[in-house]
Structures are given as structure tokens and as C-alpha cells.
């Protein structure tokens, strides 16, 4: 039916409001109606008894409606007959009338039960639909959110879910009821008089034709109207948002002229479209009246003289004329419901498309668990009392990582150790974790040769993870913290320290447009790594990879030696904190917003974190202190205050790894100076990745990485880089000596 595509903006791209300029979220045909319809029905099928009861009620009430009209025939006939035969009393009249009212009441009851049941089914079904949609959204990767605007996703919840709910609540039932009524009425008409029905059929044809012609025109003009509306609303949005600029440049008159022409275009298009859609009803209903007149004449002739041979009585004529009116209603209903049903199915299809999107890949089996660490540095199960002080990676022995003892040489060169058995005079390396009969330890050379170990070497050994890299070759990754490796336990534990390594990482958001090329950055626990470079150089991208917001295409990123892809995403992210350039707060009190960092934090924890971030002062000056409600993303706070809150939020989380992406960019340098202590406290003892526009804030980093076009141009400490007089030197000195 609806041939039109969603209206597009004037430039052919998405309209000014994204693809949803229309008030009902655009319309369009669902691509696979059958599948979508079945899947949608699934949401009301979980209570089949109710659905069945509701459908029975629909059928019964439709049939009773047809029957009630029919019951008027004997009443009128008997009155007519009695009148002609001169009777002044008709005892059967009361009974017939009571019968009629009984049927009407029954029909009304059925219709109520039906509507009630369907409303419940539809509301609950849609509740589930929205919940599943939201749950799914939580699992989708960031790349999905990059590809879809907020407005677009919002309209899945508003327009699309609404339309589905409406369709489930009304359209389906109405469609069934219309079909049954239509069939019932036609049957009655034919049985009353096949000849009159031929006349009605002609009328019905005309009315249907009007619906089709007007409907088609109306849709055509409607598409034009929506495009014009999109243009007007787009212009409104742009001009109002930029109104201060408009005024600064005295551009008011031009803006008005432009607006007026768009406004006039819309008015013309909307008038035309509105005419067709609003003329349908009066024109169709009056055409029905012409049919009514024709049938009245023909039926009158038929009924003359008491009905003649065909048994077409006065009563027949009266109810035939009623049926004649009723028969167009289902046609009208069906055409209306089909439109809304199709647009609902198109909406459902869009919802299902989101539900079917690939969730964030997460095959990681390594999880983060609280542990006790004693004075000797050995790890044991968390007692469950108080707040855990130490955390460890819990690695199942069955996963691709194997824990191997290593010798740590100069420059952290690793040599694998293992137990070996002598077989036929040659040494044979045993798989990790297997005990040798003789207790013989060997070291594995780069070429695979095995050399027995000395006792001193044995005592000094460390631990490493061994697993294949992206090229398929086995690699060793040093573990810096304590290790719990008890034979017989299904898991081994390594301490969470926060060492992050990016090795030869390739990444692109869009295939074919590399953003990072062969990027290698090593951060030891507690180090501060700063990224410097122009906008779009890839600084933020690096931090988005460490917490695995995006999947890398080449190379490997490890956290405490473990490939981040082997770590369960939730655990990985729990080990990291972030203060981002764009702060986002949630509706709720200041306290709740800080607590977002760690849900079990006490009020004291939150206040301490606020003090750390130097936010305590301004919070206390708010009307209700920590209990002040924040609304609409914290619009009642200044940008700087919001940033301080997000720093407090990160502080309360207390993770070993911290990302600060332009965290202080909206705070002026003097205030920044004042919160510097807080920032330093926040960074203390953590691995920190910091991105800052102001070079002064990154000066004291352990390593400054200068990135340009996705590649590292230089890295080193401030002093080293200044000495090199390279890009960093230029940038740094540019700030103070430009001429």
C-alpha cells in the first residue's frame, strides 16, 4: 500500500532530523512482513488462553452486531402487519425488544472483555519488547552507537514501540472484526435480496475506488508534505540554535525570508495532502448515501404490496438499508488499519534489526576477583569481610593461556622454564603443570634446545603467560605481581597491577581508513603515559582500545600480561577508570552520581572522593549539598563543576588503571592548579593514560607519546623530548615563543 519511502532532506541525505523527520517516525513497507508479523505476535502469544478468549469475543461480538440488526426485521414486519390488520396491541413487541436489548448487551460485554484483554496483552507484550530492546542495547558495541544517532535509537523506543503497541491493541482485532462483520453483512444482504445486493456491489465498488484513488493521492502528497515539514523544522532548528550568530551578523531579515518561503512551501503541500485525506470521509460517506437512495428506490419497489413472491418485506428493506450503511464501515476500517498495521510492522522490523545486531564480542574467561594478599605476597581467597584491598585475575586452567615459569634476563628478555623427562638419552619437555618423574627443570632456548637449570636460577624464576599471538606464534608475557598457582586448583590467580601494553596495534573505525598503525606503547604499573598530538591524530582512540570499546584489527593489547580479548569485558573495565572529555551525569542526587563509580560505596567514601577531586567545596555550596538533584545531564552545574564530579566518580571507583581524556580541558588553568593536588592524588599509584590539550599538564609524565596521523612520531620523557628538539619541542615552545 504505502509506496513511499521515508522522506529525505533536500540534499538527498538523511533529513534534518535524521531519517525520522515525520511525526510518526516515517512509514514504509516492512521488508519481510510474514516473519516480522509472526515474531511480533510472539510477544502476545505467551498467554494463549487470554488471546484465544479475546479472539472468541471479537468473533462473537461481530456476529452479534450483525444479528442485532437482523432482529429488527421481525419487529417492523409484525408492527406493519398488525397495523394493517387493525390491531392496537402487540404483545410480542415487548419480548422482541427485550431479546434485542439482550443481544446488544451481550455484544457490548464481549467487546469490553475483548478490548480489555487485548489491552493487557499488548501492554505487557510491549513492555517485554522494550525491555528486551533495552537489554540488547546494553550489549551492543560502541561502533553500533557511532553508526546510529541517539534520535534514531530513541525513536525505536518511542514511535516504533508505540506503533507496535497500537497495532497489537487495536489493529489486529479491528482487522479480524472488520473481516467477520463484512462477511456477515454481505451474507445477510445476499440472503435478503440478491438483486439489491448487485446494486450495493456497484456502490461498494465506487466507495472502494474513492478510497484507493484518494488514499494514493493523499499518500503521494503526504510524502511531499513530510519532506516540506522536514525542511521547515530543520531550518527552525538550525536558525534557533544559531540565533545568537544570526543576530551578531544582523542576519534576521535573510533568515525570515528563507523561513517564510519554506513555511509557505509547507503550507501549500500540507493543504493539498490534508485535503485528500480529510475529503475521503465526507465523499465516501455521501457516495454511500447515493447508494442508499438507489437501494431505497429499488427496495421500495420490491417491498411494495407486502413483499410479493421474494418475501422482501418492509422489515427486510429497513434492515437491508442498515446493512447497506454498515458494509462500508469494514472497508474503511480495513484500509485504515492496514496502513497503521504496515507502519507498525515496519517499526517492529526496525526494532528487531537492533535486537539482531551483533553484541559486543566477549569470549574472555579471565575474571577479576577480590583476594587477600598476605605479607609474603601470597594470594588467598577473599574472606568477604570489609572492602577488598587486593584484586586478582582468575584464570581457568582450561583456557588458551598457560602459566609458565620463566627466567627474566636483561631488558626483560624471557626464557621459558619447564620440567622435563629423560627419554632415550634426550630431554623431553613436559606440558606446563605436569610433574617430571625426576624433578628435572630445564630452560627452553629460543631454538627449542633444553638446558638443565642451576639451583640459583631455579630460585630466581618469575612467571609468565604463554599463549599464541595474532601471528599464531607462541609468546611469553611477564607477570609482575603475585601469583597463586596451586596444583589441583582449577584456577590460577595473578595479582591485578595495571601493566598495559599495546604491541603493534592496527585499528580502523571504518575498513580501509586506518586510524592507528603499528602502535606500540608500554605502561608499567604506576606509570603515567601522556598522549600529545593534534585533533584527530588518534589519541582518544588509543584509550578506547585499552578498555576494548572497539576491536583491534592487528597486534595485541595486554593487561598484566593477559591478552585483553581473553579477559571478560566487565572485569577488564572494572579494572579501569575514565574521566572523559564529555562529562555525562545522570538524573539523581550528587551523591548518587558519585556513587555511580562504585555502587557499594558509603556516603563517607563518596565525600572522600569528592574531596580528592576538590569538588567538596562547591557541592557543599549547592542548595542541598550532596543531596541536590541533578537533572538533564547536570545542566544546573557549570562545565567545570560537572567535570569535577566525574573526577570524583572515577576516584570512588578506585581502579588501578585510569584514563584521563582532556579531563581538565573545561577548567581554567588557575582552577586546574587548585585541583591539581586532587588530580595527583587520583593518579597516585595508578597506571595513568592522560590526554591533554595543554602541554603543561602532561609535562611530568613518565613517557610522553607524540601521535600524528595514527603513528607515533616520538616518545620519551619531557626532558628527553625537549633535548631532541623534535615535534614536541616545537609544540611546547610554540606556546611560549611563537615569533
Amino acid at each position, binding site marked *: 500500500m504505502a509506496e513511499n519511502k521515508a522522506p529525505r532532506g533536500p540534499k538527498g541525505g538523511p533529513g534534518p532530523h535524521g531519517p525520522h523527520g515525520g511525526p510518526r517516525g516515517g512509514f514504509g513497507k516492512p521488508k519481510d512482513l510474514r516473519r516480522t508479523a509472526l515474531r511480533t505476535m510472539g510477544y502476545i502469544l505467551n498467554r494463549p488462553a487470554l488471546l484465544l478468549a479475546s479472539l472468541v469475543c471479537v468473533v462473537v461480538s461481530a456476529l452479534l452486531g450483525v444479528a442485532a440488526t437482523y432482529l429488527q426485521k421481525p419487529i417492523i414486519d409484525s408492527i406493519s402487519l398488525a397495523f394493517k390488520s387493525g390491531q392496537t396491541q402487540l404483545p410480542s*413487541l415487548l419480548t422482541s425488544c427485550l431479546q434485542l436489548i439482550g443481544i446488544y448487551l451481550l455484544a457490548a460485554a464481549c467487546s*469490553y472483555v475483548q478490548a480489555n484483554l487485548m489491552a493487557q496483552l499488548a501492554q505487557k507484550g510491549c513492555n517485554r519488547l522494550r525491555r528486551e530492546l533495552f537489554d540488547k542495547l546494553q550489549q551492543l558495541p560502541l561502533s553500533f552507537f557511532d553508526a546510529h544517532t541517539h534520535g534514531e535509537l530513541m525513536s525505536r523506543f518511542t514511535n516504533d514501540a508505540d506503533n507496535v503497541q497500537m497495532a497489537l491493541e487495536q489493529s489486529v482485532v479491528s482487522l479480524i472484526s472488520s473481516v467477520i462483520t463484512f462477511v456477515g453483512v454481505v451474507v445477510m444482504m445476499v440472503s435478503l435480496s440478491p438483486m439489491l445486493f448487485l446494486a450495493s456491489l456497484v456502490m461498494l465498488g465506487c466507495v472502494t475506488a474513492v478510497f484507493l484513488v484518494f488514499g494514493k493521492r493523499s499518500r503521494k502528497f503526504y510524502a511531499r508534505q513530510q519532506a516540506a515539514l522536514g525542511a521547515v523544522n530543520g531550518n527552525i532548528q538550525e536558525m534557533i540554535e544559531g*540565533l545568537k*550568530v544570526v543576530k551578531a551578523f544582523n542576519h534576521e531579515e535573510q533568515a525570515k525570508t528563507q523561513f517564510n518561503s519554506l513555511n509557505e512551501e509547507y503550507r501549500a503541500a500540507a493543504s493539498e495532502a490534508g485535503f485528500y485525506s480529510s475529503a475521503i470521509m465526507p465523499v465516501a460517506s455521501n457516495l454511500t448515501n447515493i447508494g442508499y437512495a438507489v437501494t431505497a428506490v429499488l427496495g421500495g419497489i420490491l417491498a411494495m404490496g407486502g413483499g410479493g413472491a421474494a418475501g422482501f418485506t418492509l422489515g427486510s428493506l429497513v434492515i437491508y438499508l442498515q446493512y447497506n450503511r454498515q458494509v462500508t464501515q469494514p472497508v474503511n476500517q480495513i484500509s485504515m488499519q492496514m496502513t497503521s498495521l504496515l507502519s507498525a510492522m515496519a517499526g517492529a522490523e526496525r526494532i528487531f534489526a537492533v535486537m539482531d545486531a551483533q553484541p559486543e564480542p566477549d569470549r574472555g574467561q579471565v575474571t577479576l576477583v577480590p583476594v587477600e594478599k598476605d605479607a609474603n605476597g601470597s594470594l588467598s581467597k577473599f574472606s568477604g569481610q570489609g572492602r577488598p584491598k587486593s584484586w586478582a585475575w582468575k584464570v581457568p586452567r582450561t583456557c588458551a593461556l598457560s602459566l609458565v615459569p620463566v627466567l627474566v634476563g636483561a631488558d626483560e628478555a624471557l626464557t621459558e622454564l619447564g620440567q622435563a623427562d629423560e627419554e632415550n638419552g634426550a630431554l623431553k619437555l613436559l606440558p606446563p603443570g605436569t610433574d617430571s618423574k625426576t624433578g628435572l627443570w630445564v630452560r627452553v632456548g629460543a631454538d627449542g634446545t633444553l638446558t638443565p637449570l642451576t639451583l640459583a636460577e631455579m630460585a630466581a624464576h618469575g612467571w609468565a603467560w604463554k599463549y599464541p599471538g595474532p601471528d599464531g606464534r607462541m609468546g611469553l608475557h611477564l607477570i609482575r605481581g603475585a601469583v597463586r598457582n596451586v596444583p589441583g586448583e582449577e584456577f590460577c590467580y595473578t595479582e591485578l597491577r595495571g601493566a598495559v601494553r599495546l604491541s603493534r596495534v592496527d585499528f580502523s573505525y571504518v575498513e580501509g581508513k586506518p586510524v592507528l598503525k603499528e602502535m606500540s606503547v608500554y605502561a608499567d604499573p604506576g606509570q603515567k603515559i601522556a598522549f600529545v598530538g593534534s585533533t584527530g591524530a588518534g589519541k582518544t582512540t588509543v584509550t578506547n582500545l585499552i578498555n576494548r570499546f572497539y576491536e583491534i584489527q592487528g597486534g595485541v593489547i595486554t593487561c598484566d600480561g593477559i591478552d585483553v580479548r581473553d579477559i571478560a569485558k566487565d572485569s577488564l573495565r572494572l579494572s579501569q577508570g575514565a574521566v572523559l572529555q564529555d562529562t*555525562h551525569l545522570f538524573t539523581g542526587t550528587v551523591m548518587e552520581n558519585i556513587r555511580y563509580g562504585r555502587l557499594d560505596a558509603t556516603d563517607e567514601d563518596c565525600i572522600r572522593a569528592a574531596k580528592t577531586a576538590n569538588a567538596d567545596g562547591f557541592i557543599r555550596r549547592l542548595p542541598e549539598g550532596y543531596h541536590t538533584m541533578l537533572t538533564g545531564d547536570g545542566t544546573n552545574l557549570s562545565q567545570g563543576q560537572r567535570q569535577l564530579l566525574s573526577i570524583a566518580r572515577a576516584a570512588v571507583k578506585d581502579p588501578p588503571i585510569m584514563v584521563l581524556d582532556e579531563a581538565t580541558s573545561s577548567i581554567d588553568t588557575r*582552577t586546574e592548579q587548585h585541583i591539581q593536588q586532587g588530580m595527583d592524588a587520583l593518579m597516585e599509584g595508578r597506571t595513568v593514560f592522560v590526554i591533554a590539550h595543554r602541554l603543561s599538564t602532561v609535562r611530568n609524565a*613518565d613517557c610522553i607519546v607524540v601521535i600524528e596521523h595514527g603513528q607515533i612520531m616520538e616518545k620519551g620523557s619531557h626532558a628527553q623530548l625537549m633535548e631532541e628538539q623534535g615535534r614536541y619541542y616545537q609544540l611546547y615552545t610554540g606556546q611560549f615563543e611563537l615569533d
Partner: protein
Amino acid sequence: MLKRLASYLKGYGGYAIASPLLVVLETACELVLPLLMARIINQGIEGNNMTVIWQSGALMVAVALVATVVGGYAARCATFAAQGLGANLRRAEFEQIASFSFADIDRFSSSSLITRLTNDLTNIQNVAIMCLRVLIRGVAMTAASVVLTLAISPRLALVVCVVLPFMAAALGLLMKVCFPLFEKMQKALDHLNETVQENLVAVRVVKSYVRQDHEREKFKDANDGFTAAGLNAVLRMVAIQPVMMICFSVATVLVLYNGGNMVLGGELDIGYLQTVTGYIMQILMSAMMIGMAVLQYTRAQASIRRVFEVLDAESAITGGGADRLPAPRGRVEFQDVSFRYQTDGAGEDVLHHIGLTVEPGQFVAIVGGTGTGKSSLVNLIPRFYDVHRGKVLVDGLDVRDYPLDALRSRIGMVLQNNVLFSGTIRENLLWGNENATQEELVQAAKDAQAYDFIMSFPEGFDTYLEQGGVNVSGGQKQRLCIARAMVRKPAILILDDSTSAVDSATEGRIRQSFRENLKGTTVIIIAQRISSVQYADKIVVLDEGTVADVGSHDQLIARSPIYREIYDSQQEGGSGNG
């Protein structure tokens, strides 16, 4: 309120008057049909008169044909009137907003103004259509049906009159119960949407804090709340149809019973039975329509009020009428200026007793922490806001005496929140001066260090910028905005922290070109970086809305503790530990 709305029908008044008249005519036609039908039955069938049947039939066809045409025209007139009303209202509102001062814009907020121009207007338009067609038709239909029934038989009319108030009461009660429930449902829906919106906007925060489960819980609460509120309202609302059905059936059966007995008693012709049941049907449908129209009007009242609020806002700033304007030289003087954003007594001054003079051609920088009033100060020069006390003079004349466009055309302003408009780069630059030549555009682009990147685009100056300039980087956007202001060749150029996304080297080159090419122009800049301001002729240090000090870089380093603190904070990397 309706009367005032009606005043916006100008130009479409003919349609607005014709539409109800035509609707009434159409209604009359429709109601005549059952009467003619009664004639066919009474005189034709019962009286065995074929001629009457043919005559009446022909008359019915004619009446129905007239009604078809009239009905179509009525729809046309109603639509044209409503759309005309919408267009007039939208235009009036847009023009009103265009005349708003910055204070008005702040007061309403951009997003609210947009809603008032889009959603609210659509609501009003829908109501206008409803009123012009449905409401008038419903009222006409009900009234005429009652009158005609009365003419046929006062006793049957009594039956109708008994059912009618009962029905109205039932409908009214339902609506009264349901309306607040629907409002609650709307609130629950808003809450649901807000929850989703917040989640979408903060998706990175949610993910990095692993708060998906927390968010799910929040959503579940909002979702369940919405469903509960929805069920609460809908389960009551679905009673409407059965109630109507019962009313209809009771009335029909009463008419049949009473009418039947009257026919038998010879008081009524049998043909009128179907006429009156037909009228009852019409009354019922009309009552439903009236109910819906009233409901929609009630809902739209908020929209109407919000639109009128905009139209009624008195713009606080209108241009002055000085006869002779001084030649543009670029002198700016603040005389004991105090300023507050809220003028209704509740506000506090954000600027206190500012006295400051900028000579023509000077390069003046304003520094200070966030919230010290830097932007407020420069916004007073083009009279975006009015001073609370004191005076701002441009070229010796109080800004309030200038016609607004004369004042603002002397000033090139680059605002903190820069906006580019959809259109080509050229079109955007021409905002500065419509009559600028290509050479002037190129020069401005070069001065703003924008020429190179413009030319690196395949289409150069004809590159199309999407809405909000999303297809250029932040720094490029700022440079285009600077170029736009420079095209204007203003006597005074003001840059409000508008190079923050430009790297220091490029910024230096921009400053260099200012010095070389804008010799006679007064330049006032607000900046965070000391490097951006240190070569200014005069640096103004603002602190908590007062001028803390004025002087050159060297003077201020020597004597202004605030300035030195800012300087130090940018010299040293943090407090030196790490």
C-alpha cells in the same frame, strides 16, 4: 484564547467562514435523507404509490450528490484554513523569536523555542482542523437530529432526550477519570524516554563503569511504571465503546417499543421508526466526535499557551534612534558598568562597576578564570544584553542610542559557541558581508589561516557544510568563524575564546596576520592561554566581575598576583610532582 487564535486566520478567513457553513449544509443534506426514506415507506410502500418512490428516490440521489460536493469542499476549506492558521502563526512566532534579545533566548532556551515552533504548532493545527470540521459537524448534527425528532414526534424526542444526558454523563465521567490517568501515563512515558536518552548519551560511561545491570534495573522500573500507568488509563478507556453501544441499543429499543406502540395506535407513520433510529445513531457518533475534539483541545491548550507566551514576550532590546551616527573608528568605553542576567530583581550582578577604555586600533586581551564575567563583558559591546547600570559607548555614542543593525555592523563577533550554517563555505563567509568579492573572501580566509584547508577540499570555497558544520574539525570550524567575522571588515573585532581548538602555532599565525592586516581595527580577545595574550597592547585581568588590573604583560607579571598565577599554572607542569 480561541478568539486570539482566530486573529491568525488572516488571509484564510474566507475558508474559515465557508468551512462551517458548508459543514452545516452537508449535515442538513444528510439528515434529510432518512426523512425522504420515511416518505418512501409511508406513502410509497405502505400507500402503494410508485410515483412517490421514484420522486423521493431521485430527490435523495440529488441531495446526496450535493452533499458529496459540499462535503468535499468543506474538507478543503477546513484544511486550507487550518494550514493557513498554522503558517501564519509559525511565521509570526519565528519573526518574534528573530527579534528576541540574547536575554530572551536564554530565558526560553533554544530547545524550548524549537519545540514551540514545531511540536506545539503541529498540535494547534490539528486542533484547528478538529474544531473546524469535527466539532462543528458534531454540534450541528446533534442539534438538527434532536429538532427533527421533535418535529416527527415529541414523545420519541423525549426518549432521545432521556438517553442523551445519560450518555453525555457517562462519556464525561469516563473522560474525567481517564484524563488525569493519561497525564500520568504521559509523565511515565517522559520518564521512560529520559532514562533511555540518558543511557544512550552516556553509553561510554555506562560501559566503562560496567553499569549495564544497574541501567537495566532503572529501565525496568521506568518501563514497568509506564506499563502500569498505561494499563490504568487504557483499561478504563476501553469502556467507552461498550458504553456507547449500550446507550445506542437502549435508545433504539426504546424507540422501537414506544414507536411501535404509537404506530399501532395510529399516532405515527411506520416509516419514521427507521428515521428516528437513524438519528439516534448520528447523535451518538456526534457525541463521540465532540468528546474527542474537546479532549484534543484540552490537550492542546498547553501548546497554545506556550506559543502565546513567545508571542507575548516583549523583546527587552530595541534599537535606538540616534539621528547622526559617529564615524566608525573602533573606540569602546565602559563607564561604571554593572550587569546582571536577571533583571527582575532576583539576579545578582555578574559585573561590578567596570570602567575601561579601548582606543581605536588597540589589541586588548581579557583574561580571568571561568565565571569571572569575561564573556558577559564583551557581549555588552554589540548590545546583546543591556547594562544594569552605567553606560557602554562605541565611538563616543551610547550603544542604546544606535539602531541595532548600525551598531552590530561595526562589530565582528566570534562567539564562544560558534555555529556554521548548512550551505557552502562561501555562503557562510558571505554572512559577514553579502557584497564581499571573491578576493575579499580569500583574504579573510588567509588571515584566519583557513585558506589552505579550504583549498585542500576538492570543491574549495564551494564545499558544502552540513548542519552545524559537522564535516569540519573543531579547529577548522573556529577558523571559518573567524574568517566570517573578518569578511565584515569591522571597526571592532571581538573573539570570545574562539581559538581554543586551534593549535598554538596556527593561533600564532592568526595573531600575526591580525597585527599586519588589521592595523586600524580594534581587536578584543578573550583567551585562556597566556601565549595568546602576552603581546596585547593592554591586558585586562577580570576577577569575580571586577577589573582586577590592566596593563601590559610585563607590568602584570610584576604586579598582578592573579595574572602571575595564571602564567605560572601554564609554565609549570602541574605542581611539579609526578
